C-alpha cells in the first residue's frame, strides 16, 4: 500500500492509501471527537461529530467516512467546527431525554464526556420531551430508548462481529429507534444470544447490563486487569474492572481483533457472578454426613496417609480440571505421573480430548498441524459443522460462522443428530444418527476425492459437490463426534480430501470446552478411560467449580472409597463426594498461561489477590509428598503450543487408512 501525505492542522501527517481522514489523524496522534465511530466496525458517518474542513471543499466532511487523499489540507480544530459539534451535541440532548443524574452510565458516557469537553453548559434548543420506551424485558440487558443517540454501534456490532443481526432500526427521524428482530422486545427476541456486546459498545446509557450497573461504573473502579477468559478454548482476551477487591465488570479487550472484543454469555456473566459464590475457605474433614473444619496440617496428614496407602496398592487416582493453567497442569503431571507413576490420572473432559488426540494422531505423526485458528473461519467459503453445537460449546466460534455465512457469503452445511444450530442460514442440513456418522463421513471422503456421485442421497451428494467446489472449506468438529477417535480421523480425511488447507494447518476447528484443553492433552490426559471401571481407594479431584461435572464422572467419583476434593467454591454435588475438602484459589486469584484453540499462549492474571490462608499447589503437594516420604520429580513437559507442530504444510497431508464401516 502506498504512502500518502496530508497536512492536518498544519502538521505533515503520513497515512496509507485507503485510510480515511480520521485514520490518518489517529495514526498521527491528532484528536478528532467521534461518537458513532468504533474502530473495528464499519464507519457510518451518522453522528457527524467527526466533521472536518478540507481545503477546496465548501462542505464539512465526516472524517470517519471520507477517504484521505494525497495532498489534502485538513483542519480539525477551527471555531466553526467546534461550534458545529457543540450544536450537534445540544441537538442530541434536546432530541431525547438525557438526564445524567439518574443514569447508571453517568461518568462512563461518551456523550456526556463530549458535551463537557465542548463546554455545553446549557441547551439552546427546546427539548422534545417525547416519551420513549424503556425495554426491561431481557433478564440481563436493559434498553432505555430515552438515552439513545442512534449511533448504530450496537447494530453494527451485533451484525458485523456477532453475526446475530438481532438489532436494527425502525422508523425514521425523531421516532427512529433500535429494535430487536422485527420489533420484538429484547426479552422476546429469538435471535439474541445474550452476549452483551451491544452494551459493551453503547456510548451512552441506552443498553446496559443489570449486573454491571449494580456492581459499579467503570470510572468507580480501582483498577483494570487484562486477562483471558478461561471458560472455553477460544480464550477471549478480557478486561476485568475491579472495585474494592471485587470483580465489577468484564469486557472483551481485543476490540480490533477478528472477534471485535465480543464475549459470550459465559465470559460476560458467569465470570463476574462466580465471584459472589460461596467459597471454601478452610480445609474440612468429613464426619458422618457433615464436615468439620480442620487445620491444614491435619487435613494434609490425613490426605497423605490415605494417598500413600492407596498408592501402595496401585489404587490411587486423580481427576483434574482442564480449566487450569499450563503451570498447574505441568505440576500435576510431575506429581501424579512422574513421581507417583499413577495409572489412574485423567481430566474431566478426558473422553472428548482423548477422542480428538487419538483421532488426530495419524496426522500429527506426519508432522501436520491438524487444525486451524478459529478466526480463520472468517476466511472460509464453505463451513461444515459435524455433530457440533458451537453456540453452546464455544459461542464466539458460532459468531465467526454466522459472520462468514451472512457477510462473506460462505456456504454452511451441517451434519448432526439434531437440528442445525444455525437455523435459517444453513444451506444443507443433514440428519444422521450418531452411530452412522462415520459411514456418512467415509461416503463423503470417497465422493469428494474421487469426484463420484453418492446415489440415493441427494443432500449428501449436494454436500460432496459443495466441498469439492469450495476453495477454503473448514470443518467444525463437535465434542460429541470425539466419542470415537475414528470419527475424528474420518473427518480429518474429509478435510484433506476437500483441500481444507490454511496457512497454519488443516481447516478443522475442534470444539473443546475447557479453557486449557491443549495443555490438558499434553499433561494429565489419561491414555485410556478408567474412571468408570477402576477400583479406586483414594481419589484426588481438582475442580475449578466453573463448569458442572458430568453425572458420569460424579457417579464414578462416588465409587472411590476415599475422595480428596480441592475446589474454590462450595459446589454441590461435587463437595458431597468429598472426604477431605481442600480450598483452592478461584480463577480470578490465579495466574499463569492458557493455550487457546488458536494455538496462542495467553496469560491469566491475578485479578483479585487471594486471601492469606489459601495455599498454593506446590506447597500443598510438597507437604503431602513429604508426609508420604517421597520427593517430587520435576520433568520437562513441552509447552502446550508445541504439541501440534507444523513441520509439514497441510497440503502435504496424507489421508489416514480407516476401516470401512
Amino acid at each position, binding site marked *: 500500500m502506498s504512502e500518502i501525505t496530508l497536512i492536518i492542522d498544519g502538521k505533515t501527517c503520513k497515512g496509507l492509501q485507503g485510510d480515511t481522514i480520521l485514520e490518518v489523524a489517529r495514526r498521527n496522534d491528532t484528536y478528532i471527537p467521534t461518537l458513532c465511530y468504533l474502530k473495528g466496525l464499519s464507519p457510518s458517518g451518522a453522528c457527524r461529530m467527526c466533521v472536518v474542513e478540507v481545503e477546496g471543499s465548501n462542505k464539512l466532511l465526516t472524517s470517519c467516512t471520507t477517504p484521505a487523499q494525497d495532498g489534502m489540507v485538513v483542519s480539525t480544530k477551527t471555531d466553526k467546527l467546534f461550534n458545529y459539534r457543540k450544536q450537534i451535541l445540544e441537538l442530541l440532548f434536546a432530541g431525547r431525554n438525557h438526564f*445524567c*443524574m439518574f443514569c447508571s452510565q453517568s461518568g462512563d458516557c461518551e456523550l*456526556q464526556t463530549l458535551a463537557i469537553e465542548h463546554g455545553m453548559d446549557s441547551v439552546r434548543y427546546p427539548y422534545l420531551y417525547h416519551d420513549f420506551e424503556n425495554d426491561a424485558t431481557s433478564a440481563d440487558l436493559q434498553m432505555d430508548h430515552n438515552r439513545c443517540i442512534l449511533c448504530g454501534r450496537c447494530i453494527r456490532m451485533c451484525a458485523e462481529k456477532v453475526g446475530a443481526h438481532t438489532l436494527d432500526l425502525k422508523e425514521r427521524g425523531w421516532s427512529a429507534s433500535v429494535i430487536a428482530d422485527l420489533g420484538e422486545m429484547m426479552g422476546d427476541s429469538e435471535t439474541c444470544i445474550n452476549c452483551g456486546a451491544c452494551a459493551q459498545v453503547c456510548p451512552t446509557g441506552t443498553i446496559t447490563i443489570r449486573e454491571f450497573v449494580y456492581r459499579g461504573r467503570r470510572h468507580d473502579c480501582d483498577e483494570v486487569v487484562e486477562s483471558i477468559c478461561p471458560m472455553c478454548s477460544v480464550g477471549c482476551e478480557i478486561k476485568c474492572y475491579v472495585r474494592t477487591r471485587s470483580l465489577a465488570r468484564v469486557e472483551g479487550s481485543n476490540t480490533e481483533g477478528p472477534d471485535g472484543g465480543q464475549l459470550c454469555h459465559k465470559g460476560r456473566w458467569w465470570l463476574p457472578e462466580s465471584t459472589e459464590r460461596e467459597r471454601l475457605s478452610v480445609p474440612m474433614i468429613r464426619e458422618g454426613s457433615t464436615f468439620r473444619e480442620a487445620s491444614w496440617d491435619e487435613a494434609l496428614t490425613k490426605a497423605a496417609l490415605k494417598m500413600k496407602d492407596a498408592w501402595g496398592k496401585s489404587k490411587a487416582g486423580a481427576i483434574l480440571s482442564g480449566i487450569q493453567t499450563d503451570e498447574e497442569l505441568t505440576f500435576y503431571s510431575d506429581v501424579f505421573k512422574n513421581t507417583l507413576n499413577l495409572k489412574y490420572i485423567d481430566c474431566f473432559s478426558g473422553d472428548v480430548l482423548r477422542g480428538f488426540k487419538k483421532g488426530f494422531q495419524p496426522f500429527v505423526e506426519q508432522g501436520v498441524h491438524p487444525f486451524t485458528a478459529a478466526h480463520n473461519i472468517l476466511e472460509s467459503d464453505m463451513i461444515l459443522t459435524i455433530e457440533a453445537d458451537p453456540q453452546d460449546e464455544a459461542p464466539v466460534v458460532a459468531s465467526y460462522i454466522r459472520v462468514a455465512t451472512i457477510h462473506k457469503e460462505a456456504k454452511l452445511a451441517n451434519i448432526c443428530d439434531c437440528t442445525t444450530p444455525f437455523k435459517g442460514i444453513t444451506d444443507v442440513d443433514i440428519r444422521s444418527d450418531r452411530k452412522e456418522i462415520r459411514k456418512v463421513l467415509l461416503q463423503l471422503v470417497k465422493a469428494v476425492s474421487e469426484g463420484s456421485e453418492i446415489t440415493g442421497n441427494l443432500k449428501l451428494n449436494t454436500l460432496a459437490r459443495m466441498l469439492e467446489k469450495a476453495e477454503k472449506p473448514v470443518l467444525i468438529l463437535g465434542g460429541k463426534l470425539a466419542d470415537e477417535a475414528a470419527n475424528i480421523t474420518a473427518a480429518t480425511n474429509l478435510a484433506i480430501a476437500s483441500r481444507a488447507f490454511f496457512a497454519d494447518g488443516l481447516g478443522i476447528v475442534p470444539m473443546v470446552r475447557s479453557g486449557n484443553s491443549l495443555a490438558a492433552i499434553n499433561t494429565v490426559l489419561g491414555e485410556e478411560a478408567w474412571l468408570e471401571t477402576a477400583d479406586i481407594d483414594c481419589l484426588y479431584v481438582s475442580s475449578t467449580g466453573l463448569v458442572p461435572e458430568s453425572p458420569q464422572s460424579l457417579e464414578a467419583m462416588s465409587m472411590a472409597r476415599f475422595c480428596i476434593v480441592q475446589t474454590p467454591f462450595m459446589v454441590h454435588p461435587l463437595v458431597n463426594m468429598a472426604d477431605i475438602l481442600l480450598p483452592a484459589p478461584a480463577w480470578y486469584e490465579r495466574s499463569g498461561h492458557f493455550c487457546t484453540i488458536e494455538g496462542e499462549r495467553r496469560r491469566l492474571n491475578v485479578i483479585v489477590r487471594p486471601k492469606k490462608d489459601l495455599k498454593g499447589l506446590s506447597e500443598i503437594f510438597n507437604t503431602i509428598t513429604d508426609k508420604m516420604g517421597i520427593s517430587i520429580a520435576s520433568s520437562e513437559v513441552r509447552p502446550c503450543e508445541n504439541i501440534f507442530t507444523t513441520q509439514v504444510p497441510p497440503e502435504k497431508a496424507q489421508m489416514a487408512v480407516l476401516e470401512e464401516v
Partner: protein
Amino acid sequence: MTKPKIATTWLEACAGCHMSFLDIDERIVDLLDAVELTSTPITDIKEIPQVDVGVISGALGNEEELHIALKMRKQCKILIAWGDCAVFGGINCMRNFMDASEVLKEGYKNGVSTVNPEGIIPGGDVPALLPKAIPIDYKVKVDVYVPGCPPDPDTILYVFQEILQGRIPKVPVDMMRYD
C-alpha cells in the same frame, strides 16, 4: 463601599444546590465578608430586594415558580442558574410525558399509596401547574449557567469569586458536571 448583594431562590428542585452551597464550609465566612446574603432559603427572607446577583435553583413547574423567576430576573443584574433543574429541567421533566391534568390525577388519585376516596384534586388556592416543567431560560434570560446535580461547592464558590472580580464566568470544562 457597600457589599454586593446576593439573593437565591429554590424553585422546582430538591435542596441539593443550596446544600452544595453550604458545603463550601468555612469559606462561607470569607464570602460573607465580601457579599451580603439577602433573600435566600438560608436566611429565610421571603421578599427579594434589588440585588447584584440573583441565583435560581430548580426548574419552572407552576405559576408561582414562574412568578418568582420573573421577579428574580427583574431584581438582579446578573442571573445565575444553579443545577441541572434550572439549566436543563432535570428530574422534573419526568412529568413532561403527560398532560398537567394527568400529572395531578397520578399524584392525587391514582398513586399506589394515595388515600383520596372523594378524588379531590386541589386547585384554586394553590398555584396551577405549567403545561410542562421547563428550564428557567425558557422564560428568563440567564447570564451564568452552572450545571450539576448538584454543582460542586468549589464551582459555586468559583462563580461568585469570578463575579466579585468583575467577570461574567463560564464554568470551566474541568469543573463541569451533569450528575
